[in-house]
């Protein structure tokens, strides 16, 4: 059953309904923010606190972007928050004390922190997990101590006081945000006149930040970011440049955090070194985690909750920080979705939370040492892929050793060998997942030994994994679309506002890939729910969606039933009419049945290469592989 391409009419209607939902979101947010200071009043809050909550929430949203969507736990966000504050303060104090301009101060600060984030990010995003967290901590500490020592600029531990009140130029007027709203008594909700224009401005900024993040997470950029977080290994091997995406996310988050810091400094009129401290970085973690990294709005909720509690409790008991710590621990242990997440009770089936994911046992963390390399040029023969003395050492263990290999375009070559022969390692070398220790690899005449896996996908080398590497929470169609997207957009595209659905090629490529692997029937099924056989085929479809010229299949029928295996086999044979296919397999019937030629690996080197008949008759192959079993046993599979 095939589905027709989505008609343009429905696409347009879909877009309109999205815009409508965005408008609803903005209106709801505006309403909520309008009521917020009023609701805060009877429970011990006040307008100034409300303003501060909104400003800090912008930084929490940025943190949520990093942790919840990009999967990056940064323990150094304070460096951007504080830097934003200091830059704004210094600009106002030194550059424009007579005519303090809020736009310039804030924009200047945001620009500086954006650059800072890109510089720090360039260095940190190559690392993951605890290493990344510690490195961001290290940089934040460096910035802290440097600012503390640069007394001529920053006044060191005393901080900068009496920052001039910046005016907001809007057209012909200079708006003073210190002005209050008209005096209207609202009973227990306080007086409207308690609220300054600062609050209105902060609310507008927060709504803009929320809308931006909402668009971003739905955008092409956000889609890829989520995919990388969900399965980085697959994303890299589909052609997305994970480091660039992480860098972009880090830069955006850093700039937003700097914006928040700048606003805070302008509002407070002071800035202190504490804004750069570990405690400050930790606060963002607490705010966001308590709120929940589930939805866009939950960091705002968490920030409001904790800042409110701090304010209210600190006047009542000296144990309030202890209480805050206990709440934090309780949330992590009992409410992994955070406060808001639990209240909204999101479906277990579609958890986008890094935390729900965190509750599942970990998988292997990606190699932090993947680096891209330059491309070389070397004139070569007609073969599509060729290796010269290719070798790979793991410590002292030579997984691959001295492999000379070539395959012609359009061949279906099987790579076989006993367990531990080095087949998967060989494929990993070809696909670029790992770099060779010795020797080289040529692809269409060019030396690609140092080219990254991501780049090789774009050159036309695609791989399907031994254990299917999918995006388990996305549908089959979405899985294929992601791969197709990588093909169409390239390794990186900063489309933070527009969605990928506008790219027609993507849909077409995805459809075709599903069709070739006969997965159209399960197109809307969640990948994690597929049968084993379907998962394996999906893995191949993903590789196919990148429009490869050479397809590497690592045990494509392993674990499948006989019937499934045969069906998949014939699909693969059809594929090999259009492209070169390399297959690692143990299923001898399949290997002998469909291969044009076979390479036998043994103990890391090539034992023999030849037609199926030649290999079957090869004595040394029999001994090595089958431990001396007879030809008859081989033929019966």
């Amino acid at each position, binding site marked *: 059953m095939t589905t027709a391409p989505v008609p343009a009419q429905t696409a347009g209607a879909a877009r309109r309904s999205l815009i409508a939902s965005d408008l609803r979101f903005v209106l709801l947010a505006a309403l909520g923010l309008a009521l917020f200071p009023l609701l805060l009043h009877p429970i011990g809050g006040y307008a100034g606190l409300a303003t501060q909550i909104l400003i800090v929430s912008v930084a929490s949203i940025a943190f949520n972007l990093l*942790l919840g969507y990009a999967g990056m*736990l940064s*323990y150094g966000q304070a460096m951007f928050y504080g830097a934003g504050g200091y830059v704004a303060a210094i600009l106002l104090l030194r550059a424009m004390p007579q005519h303090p301009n809020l736009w310039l101060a804030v924009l200047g600060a945001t620009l500086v922190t954006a650059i800072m984030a890109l510089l720090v990010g360039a*260095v940190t995003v*190559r*690392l993951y*997990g*605890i*290493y990344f*967290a*510690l*490195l961001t*901590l*290290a*940089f934040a*500490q*460096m910035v802290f*101590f*440097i600012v503390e*020592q640069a007394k001529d600029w920053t006044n060191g531990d005393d901080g900068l006081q009496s920052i001039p009140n910046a005016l907001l130029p809007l057209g012909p007027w200079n708006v003073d945000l210190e002005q209050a709203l008209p005096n209207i008594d609202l009973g227990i909700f306080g007086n409207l006149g308690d609220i300054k224009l600062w609050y209105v401005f902060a609310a507008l900024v927060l709504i803009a930040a929320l809308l931006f993040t909402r668009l971003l997470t739905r955008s092409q950029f956000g889609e890829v970011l989520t995919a990388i977080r969900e399965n980085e290994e697959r994303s890299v091997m589909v052609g997305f440049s994970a480091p660039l995406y992480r860098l972009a996310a880090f830069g955006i988050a850093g700039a937003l955090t700097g914006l928040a810091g700048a606003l805070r400094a302008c509002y407070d009129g002071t800035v202190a070194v504490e804004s750069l401290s*570990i405690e400050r970085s*930790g606060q963002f*973690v607490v705010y966001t*985690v308590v709120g929940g990294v589930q939805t866009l709005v939950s960091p705002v909720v968490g920030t409001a909750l904790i800042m409110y509690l701090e304010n209210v409790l600190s006047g009542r008991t*000296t*144990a309030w*920080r*202890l209480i*805050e*710590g*206990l709440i*934090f*621990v309780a949330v*992590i*242990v009992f409410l*992994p979705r955070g406060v808001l997440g639990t209240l909204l009770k999101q479906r277990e089936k579609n958890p986008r939370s*890094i*935390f729900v*994911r*965190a*509750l599942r*046992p*970990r998988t*292997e963390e990606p*190699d*932090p*040492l993947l680096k891209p390399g330059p491309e070389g040029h070397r004139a070569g023969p007609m073969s599509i892929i060729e290796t010269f003395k290719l070798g790979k050492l*793991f*410590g002292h*263990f030579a*997984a691959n050793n001295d492999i000379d290999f070539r395959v012609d375009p359009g061949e279906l070559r099987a790579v076989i060998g006993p367990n*531990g*022969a*080095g*087949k*998967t*390692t060989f494929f*990993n070398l070809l696909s670029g997942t*790992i770099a060779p220790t010795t020797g080289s690899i040529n692809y269409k005449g060019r030396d690609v030994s140092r080219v990254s896996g991501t780049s090789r996908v774009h050159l036309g080398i695609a791989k399907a994994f031994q254990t299917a590497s999918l995006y388990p929470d996305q549908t089959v169609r979405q899985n294929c679309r992601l791969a197709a997207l990588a093909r169409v957009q390239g390794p990186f595209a900063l489309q933070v506002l527009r969605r990928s659905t506008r790219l027609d090629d993507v849909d077409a490529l995805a459809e075709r890939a599903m069709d070739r692997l006969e997965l159209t029937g399960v197109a809307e099924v969640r990948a994690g729910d597929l049968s084993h056989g379907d998962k394996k085929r999906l893995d191949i479809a993903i590789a196919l969606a990148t429009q490869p010229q050479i397809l590497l299949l690592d045990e494509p029928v392993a674990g499948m039933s006989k019937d499934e295996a045969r069906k998949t086999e014939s699909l693969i044979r059809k594929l090999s009419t259009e492209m070169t296919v390399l297959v690692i397999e143990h299923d001898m019937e399949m290997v002998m049945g469909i291969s044009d030629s076979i390479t036998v690996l043994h103990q890391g080197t090539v034992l023999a290469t030849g037609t199926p008949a030649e290999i079957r008759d090869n004595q040394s192959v029999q001994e090595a592989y089958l431990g001396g079993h007879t030809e008859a046993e081989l033929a019966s599979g």
Partner: protein
Amino acid sequence: MEALIEALLNGLVQGLIYVAIAVGLTIVFGTLRLVNFAHGAFYAVGAYTGLVVAQHYGFVTGLIAAPIAVAFFAVVLDRVVLRYFYDKTPTAQILVTFGIALVVEETLRLIFGGTTQQYPTPGFLQGAVQLGPIAYPAYRLLFAAGVLILIGLVWLFLVRTDYGLIVRAGTRDRTMVQLLGGNIRQASTIVFALGAAVAGLVGAAASPIYSIDPGTGFEFLVPSFVVVVVGGLGSFWGAVLGGLLIGELYSLTTLVYAPAANVIIYVCMALVLLFRPQGLLGESEVIRQS
């Protein structure tokens, strides 16, 4: 010249504190794969336990009580909270242990107050020892010797005892050890308690040098993480090497250009993370299944 020798000795003393804390951290990470931001809390709890006991029962009793109390505390923590987090991502581990560290610090502040306390040192341990051209505090020398012996004992435990063997094997392959029947559960708890006890003992022993306040835990934790990263997460000798290196680096930088001292250790960590992320003595490549 004297100043240089003093700086080297100070660096040694400070470095040894970092080593003692880092050793516990790194063993726990190596065996349990647990990133423990609450490790500094063990140091602080040890210091305060020692203080309370020493004020009533004397200096030496305090030093004995501290690691015992901390080991007990660690086991309780493990049973009640941490063991649910062994298989979670480092992110979740960092967060929960960070929260625990906060709670411990604030509880200590509530009980003992915020001002720095002085740890009662017996008179015979006060005063300076003449080492050639310089006079160096006797207690610090004794402390340095003590920590070195302590580290030696921990090392012996790891290489000579069955528990140590299980622990070291567990560093390589947890599942395998379990399949082979090694009681990794028990060994893990013992390792965790051991690491904590070492930190607690050092906390009590170092207090006459550095004084005690509730924030001490975090103060020593962050540089200890630097040490662990520089030495290599999971490597015992890496922690030793890293600790001494960082201690000396800090001390010598203070001598040459004091304002840079704090920055330099983070620069060091950043450089290691960038160019040799497995640390100076850490494992280099992960072997992949073929």
